[in-house]
């Protein structure tokens, strides 16, 4: 049995089609990433799976339970950390944890083992009000509260948005620890570089899934014809490349520009043209596409 099954799920808000026929399966104990920008439909999908919202069409189940018929049972077996901080700011760290445990009818001590590695980091502030915690500590407390009833499936909606690179990598280490305990994790993020930390990912945009696979396989699926271009004058280089008929696409990519050349185009010829037009030290080298390149390609070509 899959941990999550989504079958042809659609949802509109008035004229806005938030989800359009989404079909997806997440395996048990899988760390699955839903990757896409704001407005992709990620939160809507989370709300349907956690039974907070009904789909217009299609069916979905979590641990074999139907989101519509068995919604009460689902709520006992899932943990949900929404994108917005949703704990009680006037309760202390400890009170929040006890409150969530009480809601699920469990005892903090019984399930302490699961949250211990995370909770220990905020335990020195157990008496502090949740509203007075730093962003990173709030995030850890929210994760503890979502885990206190030992859920089978954990839903995390953009847990790392606006978080710095160091705290982000710490958070992903925590997720790896939870996965090792057999918990299925369904996590969304707008950061493309986090894809590689997932077992499998779905790329999502405007209510559609663009691709679903292991991150490495997705990157490999990019194909050839992608190059990294650089010159002494980076901005003029971009404009020159965009004006060339041999160039299919060109966009900034960290220290270089990524360029997609049309079939049959030799990069050496492009370099010559560019140098003749007055650019210096032009280099066009084969590049390996990553998730972000693929996302751009799929967004442009559907």
């Amino acid at each position: 049995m899959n941990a999550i099954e989504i079958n042809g799920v659609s949802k509109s808000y008035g004229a806005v089609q938030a989800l359009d026929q989404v079909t997806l399966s997440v395996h048990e104990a899988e760390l699955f990433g839903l990757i896409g920008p704001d407005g992709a439909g990620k939160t809507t999908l989370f709300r349907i799976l956690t039974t907070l919202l009904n789909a217009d069409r299609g069916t979905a189940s979590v641990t074999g339970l139907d989101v519509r018929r068995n919604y009460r049972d689902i709520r006992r077996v899932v943990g949900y950390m929404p994108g917005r901080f949703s704990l009680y700011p006037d309760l202390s760290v400890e009170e929040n944890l006890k409150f969530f445990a009480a809601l699920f009818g469990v005892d903090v001590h019984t399930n302490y083992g699961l949250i211990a590695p995370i909770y220990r980091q905020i335990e020195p502030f157990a008496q502090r009000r949740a509203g007075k915690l730093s962003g990173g500590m709030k995030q850890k407390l929210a994760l503890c509260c979502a885990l206190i009833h030992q859920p089978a499936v954990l839903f995390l909606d953009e847990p790392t948005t606006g978080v710095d690179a160091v705290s982000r990598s710490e958070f992903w280490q925590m997720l790896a620890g939870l996965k090792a305990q057999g918990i299925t994790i369904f996590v969304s993020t707008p950061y493309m570089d986090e894809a590689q930390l997932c077992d499998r990912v779905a790329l999502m945009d405007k209510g559609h899934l663009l691709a679903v696979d292991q991150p490495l396989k997705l990157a490999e699926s990019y194909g050839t014809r992608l190059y990294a271009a650089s010159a002494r004058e980076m901005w003029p280089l971009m404009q020159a490349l965009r004006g060339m008929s041999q160039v299919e696409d060109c966009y900034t990519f960290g220290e270089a520009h990524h360029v997609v050349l049309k079939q049959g185009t030799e990069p050496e010829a492009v370099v010559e043209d560019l140098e003749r037009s007055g650019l210096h030290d032009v280099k066009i080298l084969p590049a390996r596409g990553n998730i972000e390149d693929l996302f751009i390609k799929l967004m442009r070509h559907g």
Partner: protein
Amino acid sequence: MDRNDRLAISVKGLTKRFGAFTAVDHITFDVAGGEIFGFLGANGAGKTTAMRMLCGLSFPTEGKGWVAGFDIMKQSEQIKKHIGYMSQRFSLYDDLTVVENMRLFAGIYGMKTSDAKLRIDELLSQLHFGQERHAIVGSLPLGWKQKLSFSVATIHRPEILFLDEPTGGVDPITRRQFWELIYSSVNEGMTVFVTTHYMDEAEYCNRLSVMVDGQIKALNTPKELKLQYGVDTMDEVFRRIARGATRSE
């Protein structure tokens, strides 16, 4: 007066204390005119506090600084006229249309009606806003709002533009279009001072500083920083520097 006209920003020993807590601890750096300067740091490192002092919104406890040639201690009102500021928390009015927002900000910056009209037309065509110019801002997608925020922050053609995490949450194509707006403004002579959590964007900056616990721990070009730390990406540079942080927000 040691007013400095050549540099866009020049600060020496800039410090801000809140009671016993030193949020910004003796930072010193210069930003040249026309430069894209990346101001990096972990959450809670003191970036926002430093940026508020540079924008004339908060006075330093200690140290000196000049922004657009004006003294941050004595000429904060002058500074505000010569800079633009955009943060991820938009200052746009959701209930007004695109054009109404532009007119409002042009008015706030004291632009003449005729100048404002020309400038608004120019910005609208740069953004490729057609019919959308009469759309209520609250109904626009996030990426459009970000581009509009950028335009509003530069409507008075500021010498220096401060961007506080301008690109959070948008898709990779929109994020790049946003950086192209930055590049084209810099091409016209504007200086950009930007914070971001996206390390590929750090690569687009001419120079970068990395703040840890209120102090600047590194400052150089992306290329030199990567060489210095012997790594391939800015992401790795950032982690090496910021990992030693003892405080968070």
